[in-house]
Structure formats: structure tokens, C-alpha cells
């Protein structure tokens, strides 16, 4: 019986297997000696490696195949366990399970290449997945498409690793036809709100293919060529398995195993929004390729052949970087269409596999792995462009990237430090994105600005600003100029104002924000409207008068009656924040000091409505437009102290949007409070919802931590009881007695822990409902206030992209920006909102113009859930 030490060594050996012929032979020899006894642990280790070392799938498949000859049961066990794990992963929609299922299916696809199973068996498994997608399409439950797209995608994604072999199976063509059939049934472009870039200048949205069609196009190209010549399936990034073992050793008279049939579980969703949140589209930093075959420079001589067969031609017309720079033009002998596909898979999978682990002690940080991917060595520059483009694509993925954006920031920083030529490539990609920033989605722009500010602040603010000096001459609402000022504003948050100013060339000093200060216009306005109360309150602040006395004074001096509760609350908030303007802690202290008075003034009573949104307006207004960050921070302090709820933020947004357009403010609008369309309003809205989301995560974590403790204690108790029984049967009564006592103590602890678990589990549901309320109220408020006003902007957005998107683009109008922000907000909160609020939002869109309803409805539910004004069932 092997001890735990031997098991550890076996595990280490399997993990560090590098795929070279000597090591494979050595390792398979060693394992063959241990195997019949240690089938289960060895199988567990191999599967662990297949899931967590995504680049080495062929290596592990070969290892297993080399053991097929002598240890057939082990391979049987691997086959069975893989299929079981695959079924479990397909039954869940978390990120981990989605990626795990894809990696396991890839492993399954490689089996025929190494001779563990027959080609037909592997194709049958892939086919089962595709049929599940087709079934979902037939049934047409609400929100069926995102998961079905995912299923079709993982089947396609497994093919580059094994296509040449699988094509020999007779069921292969039938499976590919099923996929093509599915592509016809699905709605193209399922999530228009998640397109990073608007279609290329002059073309409309429905002339470009979407992510699944692009994947299909690449695989299909290679399949058509592969029908004549198997070598066209070669992908340089995937080392061919026959390199490792040659000749007779590979001819396993060994038994081809039969995997059990795969059952793909059906999943239902309460609505399209939930489905899209569970299965987001695959990110890519290009908006798609034109479907017209006429633009094809490479395959022009196939034009008629292709035209007659209605192809999906892949062409470089709408990429960020030209195709030659990132993957070549698919000439013979050069990279094929699958090269880039495989490289993107590698990058995404490596980022996922190496994300956990604490930075300082992480065994192999993600960036090191990225630098050593097995990408083809013949074009190192191309690889770097590809990595840069893919990383940015992942980081800017909408609605949310797979990991927090800051993870990608760190990976890019580490890569810049590790590879000397990488910063230049990365800067080129950024420059190209900057040139097309007019086409870029609002939230993507903000995320890119955030990245850039963080990156620059870690590299001493060094950036070739000279190449962007032309923005100084542009109008202030020009997309490029707004992007630059956004970057600079965030830099001022992370670094010092003067330092940032020094780092910019003189011509660009005009995009610097104002020196951070309070908004004098707002204070003046409050002063004039307060009938002298503001001056008195400012004096009280200096004397540090407590809240109860201030409240007393307000009532007795008649100011409360003169101003009304809302007015008094506004004046008090302005006075407190003005006194505490120095830093965030002062804000905190003052708001806490006057918490009692503010609550009394703004809470809902039987006679009057609550007016906490007045406080939000004051906190935001006092810093509006004159400070890069404090408006958001002041509102966050109000939220933390519980003075203000997310519903109040929603109400504030609704009133501020309706008021400003009613009052007919000027284009700038900055001094009149925080307009929807400014970055502050966006940050405040996100903050209100994310705070509630963070609370929910907290409750869930506590509940799961309590559950883990209970399980650990139960395991301990079971062990103690087993010890007691064993001691008793051996006649060691004293030991048995002691073990029984220990078991008794643990039982007591378990009872206490179970009570804790019950306490922790109750609030989780409630927290979920609170989150749905917060997000739903915000979305509803935005839709109600904005839908009547955005008809023109929506009509523009639905039309073809304007021809000029670079330096000569037209400045954006305020209503266009407001529409973009509203779409971004709906898309961002769609995973929190829940079916009930989704329905309410759709109802609210009933009265709006067709384009507005489409734009906002699709932002909420995707094209798969919303078509025109009707709900798709």
C-alpha cells in the first residue's frame, strides 16, 4: 500500500512531465509498475493536470495511451472518470465549470489521435453536445441561445486538436452538418450590446459575422482543405503526438475503449438576461468580418465557387491590427486559420488556470506562463501582437471580463517587465484602438482609460503623449479628447496633480482637469436658496455643535419651516461636506456627527415621503465637475453610513435627468449638478449597485465558510468514532474511552457550528432580493427618465457607423453619450436584475420609439430575449 509520500511524488512527477520522449518513457515506465494498485489516485492526478494545465492536453493523452498497452484498466478508469466529470461540468454554469467542460472535451477529442478510443466514439461524444444545442434550439425556451451557443462552441473548439484524425470517422461530416444547421437556426449577433466595436465605417450591424460564425468559419476552412490533404489540419502550436513515440510502440494492439454515452443536462433560465449573464459571448478585439465574399483578397480565385455556396469569408477589413501583423494571410506553409484560434484558447485558458494563488508566493505567476506559451517560434513579433490583442480583448470583454480587470492590468505589467520588446507592441495596439475610439463602446473606453492610468502610474507616467497632441485642437466632446481627459483625470486620482501636469507635453495641458476644489457655483446657489441658514450652519460646524442641538436650532429658528425638510437636509449636507472638504476621513467624521439630524430630516414618515435623494444630489453637486473623485467618494460615504439607500440614488438620477432637460441646461452642464453622461454619474450608479452586490457576496461567503466548518468538524467526529471503534476491537479500552470523549466534544462543537450555519444561510436569499431591488430600481429609473429623450440618438446608433471614426470624427452629442451610458448600465446590471424587473423594464419601454426600445431592450436582454417591441419566447 503506497504511503502518502509516494502519492505526493507521483503527483509531482505527473505535474512536471514536460512531454519530451525520454521523460514520457521514463514516467510511463514508473507508473506502469505502480498502476494496478494505484489506479484511482493516478487517474485523479492525471485528470487534475488535464484540467489545470490546459496547454499540455496532448502530453497527458499520450501518457495515458502509453499505459494502454500494459494497464488497460487504468485507461478504462480515465475514460470513465473523464466522461463523468464532463457531465457534471456541463450541468453547471460557473466560469470554472464552463472552462473545465471545454478542456475535458478537448481531452476527449485527442483520444482517437493516440489510439485510446475509436474515432467514431469520440465524434459521438462531440455529436451529443451538438445535438443538445440543436434540441435547445428546437424547444425554444426563454434564453436558450447563450447556452446552446456555448455547447456548439466547445464542440468546435475541440477540433483543432484532433481534426485530422476525426475527419476519418464517417460520422464527422454529419456532425459538421449539424453544427452548420445550428448556425442557421440561431439568431446572429445575440448580444449587440456586448459588441466592443461598432461595425466598420459605412456598414450596418447585420453585415458582419459574430464570434461563433468566425470560429465556425475558421474550422470549416480547414476542414474543406483537410478533405484533400490531412496536413492542412496541422497547427504549429500543438506539438504532434507522434513526435513523442514512434514506430511499434504506438501500434497499440491495445484495446480501444468505449466511453459511456454522454448525457447533456438541459438548463432553464428565468429570462434571457440571466442566460446571457451565465453564458457570455467569447470576447474578441475586432468587431467581425464582412460577410460579403467580394472583399476577399486571398481567396479571390475561389470567388465563384465560394459565392455559390454562401460562405462565411474571413477578411481583415474590420480588425484593430491588420491581419498580416497578428496571424499572417493564411498562405501555404505559413500559419493557418486555426493558429490564431488555438493561440487565443491558450491565452484564455492559461489566464484562468494561473489566476488563483497569492502573488508573492504564487508558484508560477500567470505572466511567466504567458511568456512561455508554445506559440510558433517562427514569427515572434506576430506572437507578441497576438498576445497583446488577445489580452486587451479579454480585458475589455463586455459585459464583464472573465476575471477582474485589475488582473489583466497586472499580467500586462508583468509581461512588459519580462519581455523587453512587448511594451512597444502593446503600445501599438493601444494606438490602433485610440485611432478607432469613436467606434468603441462606452464602457470599454472607460475600462481602457482605467487600465492606462493604472499602467502609467506604475511606470512613472511615461507614455508617448507627443503622438496624441492633436487632441488639443479637437472639440471637448470629441471621442479622442474625452478619452485622453478620462485617462488624465484617473491619473490625477492615482498620482499628484502637479506631477501629472509635468508629465504631459505643454500642448496637452488643456485636457487637465481643474485644480481639485469644491464647486463654487453650487455652494453659491445653495447659499442663495437657504435664506441665511447656510452661514449659521457653517459657524456651527466650526464650533463642532452636536446634531441634536443643530436640529433644535433648525426647529426653533423657523428655518425648518422656511426651507422644508428637503431643503434643510440639503443645506446641512452642504455645510457638513464643505467643512470636511480636506480629505475622506473628515467627510466620514462630519457625516457621522450629523447622522442623527440628517436621518430625522430625510426619513419617510406617515405624513411625508422620504427625501434622502436630496443628500445624494448635494454630495454629488458640491464636487461636480471640479474634482476627479470626491463626488463619488462623498456618495459612497453616505451609502456606507446607511443614510442613503440605492433606491434613493435611483430616484436622484431620475429627477436629475428629468430636471436638466426640462430646465434646458447648456451643453456643458457641469456646474448644474451631475448630469447623466458625465463619468461621475456613471460611477455613482455603479457604486450604489455594487455595494449591495458586495454585501450579497459577503453573506454567501459566510454561509459557505460555515458549511465548510461543519463538514470539517463532521469528518473529524467520524474519524474519532472510527478510532474509538478500532481501539475497542483491539482491546485498548482506555484509548477507546478517550477517543469516545473526543468524539463527544466534537459533537457538541458540531451542534454549535450547525446553529451558526443556519444563522448564516438565512440572510443570503434576502441579500439576493435586495440586490435585485437595487439594480432593478436603477434600471427602471434610467429607462423611465431617458426613454422619451433619446429617440434621435437611438436612430443614429441604429444606422450605419459614420465614415470618420479617427481624428476627424464628429464630436459626440450629449444625448448620444447619455444613450451609450444607459445601454452600458442596463447591460452591466442585467445579471442582478431578475426576471421580474426585466419584465418591468420592458413594460416601461412600451411607450418609447422603436429604435430606443430596441437599443435599451437589447441591452437588457440581448437580441435573444428582445426583438423589436416584443418578447421572444
Amino acid at each position: 500500500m503506497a504511503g502518502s509520500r509516494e502519492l505526493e511524488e507521483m503527483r509531482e512527477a505527473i505535474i512536471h512531465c514536460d512531454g519530451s520522449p525520454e521523460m514520457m518513457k521514463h514516467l510511463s515506465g514508473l507508473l506502469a509498475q505502480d498502476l494496478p494498485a494505484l489506479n484511482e489516485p493516478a487517474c485523479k492526478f492525471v485528470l487534475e493536470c488535464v484540467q489545470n494545465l490546459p496547454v499540455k492536453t496532448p502530453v497527458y493523452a499520450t501518457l495515458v495511451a502509453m499505459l494502454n498497452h500494459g494497464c488497460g484498466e487504468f485507461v478504462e478508469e480515465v475514460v470513465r472518470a473523464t466522461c463523468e466529470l464532463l457531465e457534471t461540468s456541463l450541468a453547471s454554469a460557473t466560469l470554472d465549470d464552463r472552462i473545465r467542460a471545454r478542456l475535458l472535451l478537448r481531452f476527449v477529442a485527442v483520444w482517437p489521435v493516440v489510439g485510446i478510443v475509436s474515432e467514431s466514439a469520440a465524434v459521438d461524444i462531440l455529436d451529443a453536445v451538438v445535438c443538445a444545442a440543436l434540441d435547445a434550439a428546437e424547444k425554444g425556451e426563454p434564453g436558450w441561445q447563450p447556452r446552446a451557443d456555448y455547447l456548439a462552441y466547445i464542440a468546435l473548439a475541440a477540433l483543432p486538436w484532433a481534426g485530422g484524425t476525426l475527419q476519418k470517422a464517417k460520422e464527422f461530416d454529419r456532425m459538421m452538418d449539424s453544427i452548420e444547421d445550428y448556425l442557421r437556426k440561431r439568431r446572429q449577433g445575440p448580444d449587440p450590446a456586448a459588441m466592443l466595436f461598432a461595425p466598420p465605417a459605412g456598414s450596418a450591424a447585420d453585415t458582419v459575422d459574430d464570434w461563433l460564425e468566425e470560429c465556425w468559419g475558421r474550422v470549416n476552412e480547414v476542414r474543406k482543405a483537410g478533405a484533400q490533404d490531412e496536413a492542412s489540419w496541422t497547427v504549429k502550436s500543438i506539438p504532434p503526438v507522434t513526435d513523442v513515440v514512434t514506430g511499434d510502440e504506438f501500434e497499440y494492439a491495445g484495446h480501444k475503449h468505449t466511453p459511456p454515452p454522454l448525457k447533456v443536462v438541459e438548463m432553464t433560465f428565468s429570462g434571457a438576461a440571466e442566460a446571457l449573464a451565465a453564458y457570455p459571448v467569447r470576447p474578441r478585439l475586432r468587431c467581425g468580418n464582412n460577410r460579403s465574399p467580394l472583399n476577399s483578397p486571398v481567396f479571390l480565385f475561389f470567388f465563384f465557387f465560394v459565392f455559390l455556396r454562401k460562405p462565411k469569408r474571413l477578411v481583415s477589413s474590420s480588425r484593430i491590427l491588420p491581419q498580416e501583423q497578428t496571424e499572417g494571410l493564411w498562405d501555404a506553409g505559413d500559419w493557418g486559420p486555426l493558429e490564431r484560434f488555438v493561440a487565443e484558447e491558450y491565452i484564455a485558458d492559461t489566464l484562468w488556470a494561473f489566476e488563483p494563488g497569492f502573488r508573492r508566493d504564487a508558484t508560477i505567476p500567470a505572466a511567466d506562463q504567458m511568456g512561455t506559451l508554445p506559440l510558433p517560434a517562427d514569427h515572434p513579433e506576430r506572437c507578441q501582437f497576438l498576445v497583446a490583442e488577445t489580452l486587451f480583448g479579454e480585458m475589455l470583454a463586455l459585459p464583464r471580463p472573465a476575471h477582474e480587470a485589475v488582473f489583466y492590468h497586472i499580467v500586462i505589467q508583468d509581461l512588459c517587465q519580462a519581455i523587453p520588446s512587448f511594451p512597444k507592441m502593446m503600445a501599438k495596439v493601444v494606438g490602433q484602438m485610440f485611432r478607432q475610439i469613436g467606434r468603441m463602446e462606452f464602457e470599454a473606453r472607460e475600462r481602457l482609460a482605467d487600465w492606462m492610468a493604472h499602467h502609467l502610474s506604475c511606470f512613472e507616467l511615461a507614455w508617448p503623449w507627443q503622438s496624441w497632441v492633436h487632441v488639443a485642437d479637437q472639440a471637448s466632446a470629441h471621442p479622442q479628447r474625452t478619452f485622453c481627459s478620462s485617462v488624465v483625470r484617473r491619473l490625477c486620482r492615482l498620482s499628484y496633480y502637479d506631477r501629472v501636469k509635468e508629465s504631459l507635453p505643454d500642448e496637452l495641458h488643456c485636457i487637465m482637469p481643474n485644480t481639485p476644489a469644491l464647486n463654487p457655483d453650487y455652494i453659491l446657489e445653495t447659499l442663495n436658496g437657504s435664506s441665511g441658514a447656510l452661514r449659521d450652519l457653517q459657524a456651527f460646524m466650526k464650533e463642532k455643535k452636536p446634531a441634536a442641538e443643530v436640529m433644535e436650532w433648525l426647529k426653533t429658528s423657523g428655518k425648518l419651516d422656511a426651507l422644508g425638510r428637503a431643503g434643510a437636509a440639503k443645506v446641512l449636507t452642504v455645510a457638513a461636506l464643505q467643512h470636511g472638504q480636506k480629505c475622506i476621513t473628515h467627510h466620514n467624521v462630519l457625516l457621522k456627527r450629523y447622522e442623527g439630524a440628517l436621518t430625522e430630516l430625510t426619513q419617510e414618515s406617515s405624513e411625508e415621503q422620504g427625501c434622502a435623494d436630496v443628500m445624494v444630489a448635494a454630495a454629488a453637486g458640491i464636487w461636480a465637475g471640479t474634482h476627479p473623485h470626491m463626488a463619488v467618494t462623498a456618495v459612497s460615504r453616505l451609502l456606507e453610513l446607511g443614510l442613503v439607500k440605492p433606491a434613493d440614488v435611483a430616484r436622484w438620477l431620475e429627477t436629475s435627468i428629468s430636471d436638466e432637460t426640462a430646465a434646458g441646461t447648456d451643453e456643458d452642464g457641469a456646474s448644474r449638478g451631475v448630469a447623466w453622461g458625465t463619468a461621475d454619474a456613471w460611477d455613482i450608479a455603479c457604486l450604489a449597485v455594487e455595494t449591495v452586490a458586495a454585501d450579497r457576496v459577503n453573506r454567501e461567503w459566510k454561509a459557505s465558510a460555515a458549511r465548510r466548518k461543519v463538514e470539517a468538524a463532521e469528518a473529524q467526529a467520524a474519524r474519532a468514532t472510527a478510532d474509538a471503534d478500532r481501539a475497542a476491537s483491539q482491546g485498548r479500552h482506555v484509548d477507546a474511552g478517550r477517543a469516545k470523549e473526543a468524539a463527544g466534544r466534537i459533537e457538541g462543537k458540531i451542534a454549535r457550528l450547525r446553529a451558526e450555519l443556519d444563522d448564516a444561510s438565512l440572510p443570503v436569499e434576502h441579500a439576493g432580493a435586495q440586490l435585485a431591488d437595487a439594480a432593478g430600481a436603477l434600471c427602471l429609473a434610467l429607462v423611465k427618465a431617458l426613454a422619451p429623450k433619446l429617440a434621435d440618438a437611438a436612430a443614429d446608433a441604429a444606422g450605419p457607423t459614420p465614415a470618420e471614426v479617427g481624428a476627424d470624427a464628429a464630436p459626440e452629442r450629449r444625448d448620444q453619450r447619455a444613450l451609450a451610458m444607459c445601454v452600458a448600465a442596463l447591460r452591466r446590471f442585467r445579471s442582478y436584475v431578475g426576471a421580474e424587473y426585466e419584465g418591468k423594464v420592458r413594460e416601461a419601454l412600451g411607450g418609447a420609439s422603436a429604435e430606443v426600445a430596441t437599443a435599451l431592450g437589447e441591452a437588457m436582454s440581448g437580441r435573444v430575449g428582445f426583438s423589436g417591441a416584443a418578447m421572444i419566447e
Partner: protein
Amino acid sequence: MARLFLDSEPLTQYKDRLFKGSMEEYLDRLRSSATLYVGNVSFFTSEEQIWSLFAKCGVVKTVIMGLDKHKLTPCGFCFVEYHNRVDAERAVKYLNGTKLDDREVRIDFDWGFQDGRQFGRGKSGGQVRDEYRTNYDAGRGGYGVL
């Protein structure tokens, strides 16, 4: 692959001497805390800069600047509290060792803020590490105090 080695990663290299309780309890608190200790911060870094950096990992509940006991000015460390443990882990995973205000900061789990812990424990008022430092550090008051 990082998942394959998660069990062997140590939780912390530091035990707070003023914590009243066993090592087991201390580690237990660290495993469930959402508060972080941030060290090697410059004396001139503002609260806002700390806020902006840590807001990238989640919604920050509060930031408490570490103060010199006598002068009541920032003395180069702070506590950052998030709403939940997941965000705190993210900050330690991603931002530990990266730059804040041009200095590499050290981020660690903290067992929980209590009033009084925001003051430096050195005899001169600042942090103990600044007393014995022999190199010149412009952002932390020059040479060591002792």
C-alpha cells in the same frame, strides 16, 4: 497550475504581537477577515490615492490611515477594509508587490481593525521598522530615527 499548489501556500509571515489569543485563533481570523494591512506606503500618499487603487478590486468600505502616535500625521501604513472576503483576497492576490505612488506596497490580511491600532508602535511615534532602518528613504522621512 496555481490551483494545484494552493494548499501549500502560507497564509502570512507575520504574527501581530498584540493579538491576544493562540496562533490557531489568529490564523482563523486571518482566514475570514476582509481587512487588509498595507505597508511600505510613502508618508505623502493621500487617502484618495489608496482609495483609487484598492477600488479596482472591489467596493472599499473604509480606509484608515496609520498615524504617528505623537504627531498624528500619516506614518506609512494603512488599513483597507472591503465589504467581503473575496475582494480582500483579490487585492492580496493581484496588488501585493505592485506600485502605489511609485513604491512597491506590501499587502497582507489583518485580523481586524480596533481603535488604537492605527497608531505606530515605535518609541518615536512612527512604525517600528522606521526606527531601525539604515537606508535613506525620501518617502518615509529620510534615515531611520534611531
